[in-house]
């Protein structure tokens, strides 16, 4: 069959199961957009800025595990994708980005809208391709999808010059490769048998084990295996920001998130464990703080599909390279049940002594908004976030029931991610309730995508945690820069209610706790357009607990009035106590009092 490169490209995408492309047209993409005209098998979502397209493809991929696809023209279109590609790369998200490129004959001659996007994206893609020949399209598309979704997933970029898309060649769609073989790319999925036995042995011998689960558990779909291991051995589980949902966070064995803004009890548990079972996690600096003080003295089992993660930050005693789910399944064959331990009691004690609490003084706080979103949706809603204080509050207070429910830019920390990601999620899962938790800073970085949501009739609900400042930076300036608040006061923002309305959505503002639930309920009744909920909170609110960057658990800062808050939250709670023999706990309490 004779067809253009552009048509071949679409046929290949269709054969990869692509249903949606998030994109924005431009000069050199004209052949591709011409082929898309009237093409029924793939829906194109026209965004308002290419960054939005990349984040939508990313959100789409995070919600489903399928490869997200975005597309932009050459030059500025392609460079506008860069932030979104880097976001996906840092969090190992499968994505294929297609960019237009100037004609092959003028590449390198500074042609109109030319940018060396394969050069630019080399450090932020798993792999990329510059097509030179129309006949290469099927092989390259097949390889790109294969690379994006296998092994440690990641974004792959395909740069398509105008003439490659325009040229017509003879091609039989049935020859599209069904299996891809790249001799130099063979990810290890099965863990080493001996190492797995050693891990089982270490678990049997450990007195104080902890499971530390990351995004790899989500990517490999290992919730059942993580939960089974935790339950069988009675091991408490703490997750990274990207690992949220690897075990139901309402589970008795879940300790929530660890790290800089993790729960105090998770951090104390990790700090005092004698066996750290790291599963699909990469010892990020926001998790470890000062590396040589992190889980000091613990043996480490590190399970990861990427060999380069083993020993990158922490040298494990028992490394296991392989797919997390596959390895855990093997491991479970060798692991024997362990009873509930005194160690677990000690952690539960920490949980009682240092709970997550926030003021209940009649003012509106982000934590309350997040809890109300959870309760109004039975904790079933998918939540995307932007980046900053609101993101950390969401990580602390939004208790995920399952994987792929919490969608956030962890590694890169990309402000502006939340709204377009939510749109991508909603496009992938039309039945899902999708909330975006944002801040008044972050929201304005990709606010234009409200229009996309309106045009496509997508009822995503954005709750803006509005503190009129760039809260996380403000918090650091308050705590570490002598309250020299340098350029963190936003001074003025648009009226978000009117802004939402101007974009064709619904806008609401809440300033008091009792207004929150009715507003959420009302937002949930909107079925055909985006909703913006402007939640006005005090500027001075900080995220606690906090371990300052590069420091360790001993340096953790808790709320100053923790005891008062605990009393106000639960006046009939049993008074907490601990045995004086328990040195570790005593030390911890001493820190708090100090």
């Amino acid at each position, binding site marked *: 069959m004779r067809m253009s490169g552009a048509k071949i490209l679409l046929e290949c995408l269709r054969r990869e199961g692509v249903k949606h492309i998030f994109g924005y047209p431009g000069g050199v993409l004209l052949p591709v957009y011409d082929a898309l005209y009237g093409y029924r098998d793939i829906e194109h979502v026209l965004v308002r800025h290419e960054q939005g397209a990349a984040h939508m493809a990313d959100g789409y991929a995070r919600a489903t595990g399928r490869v997200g696809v975005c597309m932009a023209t050459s030059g500025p279109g392609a460079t506008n994708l860069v932030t979104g590609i880097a976001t996906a790369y840092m969090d190992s998200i499968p994505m294929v980005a297609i960019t237009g490129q100037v004609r092959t004959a003028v590449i390198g001659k500074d042609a109109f809208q030319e940018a060396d996007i394969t*050069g630019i994206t*080399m*450090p932020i893609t798993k*792999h990329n391709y510059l097509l030179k020949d129309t006949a290469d399209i099927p092989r390259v598309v097949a390889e790109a999808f294969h690379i994006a979704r296998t092994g440690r997933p990641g974004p792959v970029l395909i740069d398509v010059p105008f003439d490659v898309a325009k040229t017509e060649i003879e091609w039989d769609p049935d020859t599209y490769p069904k299996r891809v073989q790249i*001799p130099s790319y063979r990810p290890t999925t099965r863990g080493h048998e001996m190492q797995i036995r050693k891990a089982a042995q270490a678990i049997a011998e450990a007195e104080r084990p902890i499971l530390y689960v990351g995004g790899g558990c989500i990517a490999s779909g290992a919730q059942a295996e993580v939960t089974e291991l935790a339950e069988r051995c009675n091991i408490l589980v703490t997750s990274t920001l990207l690992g949220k949902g690897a075990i139901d966070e309402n589970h008795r064995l879940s300790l929530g998130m660890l790290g800089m803004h993790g729960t105090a009890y998770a951090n104390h548990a990790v700090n005092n464990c004698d066996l750290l079972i790291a599963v699909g996690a990469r010892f990020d600096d926001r998790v470890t703080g000062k590396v040589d003080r992190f889980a000091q003295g613990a043996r480490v089992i590190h399970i990861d599909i990427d*060999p*380069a993660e083993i*020993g990158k930050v922490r040298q494990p005693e028992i490394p296991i390279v392989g797919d997390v789910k596959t390895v855990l399944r093997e491991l479970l064959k060798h692991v024997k049940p362990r009873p509930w331990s005194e160690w677990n009691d000690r952690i539960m004690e920490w949980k009682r002594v240092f709970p997550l609490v926030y003021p209940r003084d009649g003012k509106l706080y982000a934590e309350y908004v997040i809890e109300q979103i959870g309760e109004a949706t039975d904790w079933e809603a998918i939540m995307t976030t932007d980046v900053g204080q609101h993101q950390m509050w969401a990580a602390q207070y939004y208790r995920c029931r399952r994987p792929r429910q919490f969608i956030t830019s962890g590694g890169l920390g990309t402000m502006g991610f939340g709204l377009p990601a939510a749109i991508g999620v909603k496009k992938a899962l039309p039945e899902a309730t999708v909330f975006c938790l944002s801040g008044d800073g972050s929201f304005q970085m990709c606010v234009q995508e409200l229009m996309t949501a309106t045009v496509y009739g997508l009822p995503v609900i954005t709750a803006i945690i509005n503190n009129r400042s760039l809260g996380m930076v403000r918090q650091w300036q308050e705590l570490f820069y002598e309250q020299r608040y340098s350029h963190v006061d936003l001074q003025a923002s648009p009226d978000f209610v009117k802004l939402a309305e101007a974009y064709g959505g619904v806008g609401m503002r809440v300033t008091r706790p009792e207004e929150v639930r009715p507003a959420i309920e009302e937002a949930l009744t909107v079925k055909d357009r985006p909703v913006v909920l402007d939640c006005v909170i005090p500027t001075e609110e900080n995220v606690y607990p906090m371990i300052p960057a590069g420091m360790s658990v001993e340096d953790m800062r808790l709320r100053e009035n923790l005891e008062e808050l605990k009393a106000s939250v639960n006046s009939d709670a049993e008074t907490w106590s601990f045995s004086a023999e328990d040195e570790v706990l005593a030390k911890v309490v001493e820190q708090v009092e100090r």
Partner: protein
Amino acid sequence: MAAWSSTLMAQLQQQHVITALVENHPGVLARVSGLFARRGYNIESLTVSVTDDPEVSRMTIVVGGDYAVLEQITKQLNKLIEVIRVVDYTEIPAVERELALVKVNAEPKDRTEIIQIVEIFRGRIIDMGDKTFIVEVTGSPEKLDKMRELLQPYGIKEMVRTGVIAMARGARTA
């Protein structure tokens, strides 16, 4: 390992020779060198050329750093899709060779001495001008260093080295 003197061993302890077999595609060199730059590794030398298989190129890279750094480099290189295989020659008996061209001042009174030095190093004089020679010499990096040292007093006007290539001794292949 090659018969290095103890002083040279000490000098080179922080250096490792690794080879990477890579797909002979445009842009592979950029991927490899870019990886070194962005991960903060130091390349001492890098040579690339096609192997007996025209689809495959071989890169020989001399890098600085301790074993932990070397292990990360090897793993990160292996992650590049177009890298087929990486071999670290630190623990493998291997032959290492480098070629140098040296343009040295050669006043008539010095010529005999220079020719003697070149002969001792089994080098060759491949160009003879009014005032200069070009000397070609092959050998281990240390041998090249030594010859440079001995020619220095006559005045080296220019010097170019290819960087090390390496091959395992015996039947073993990369």
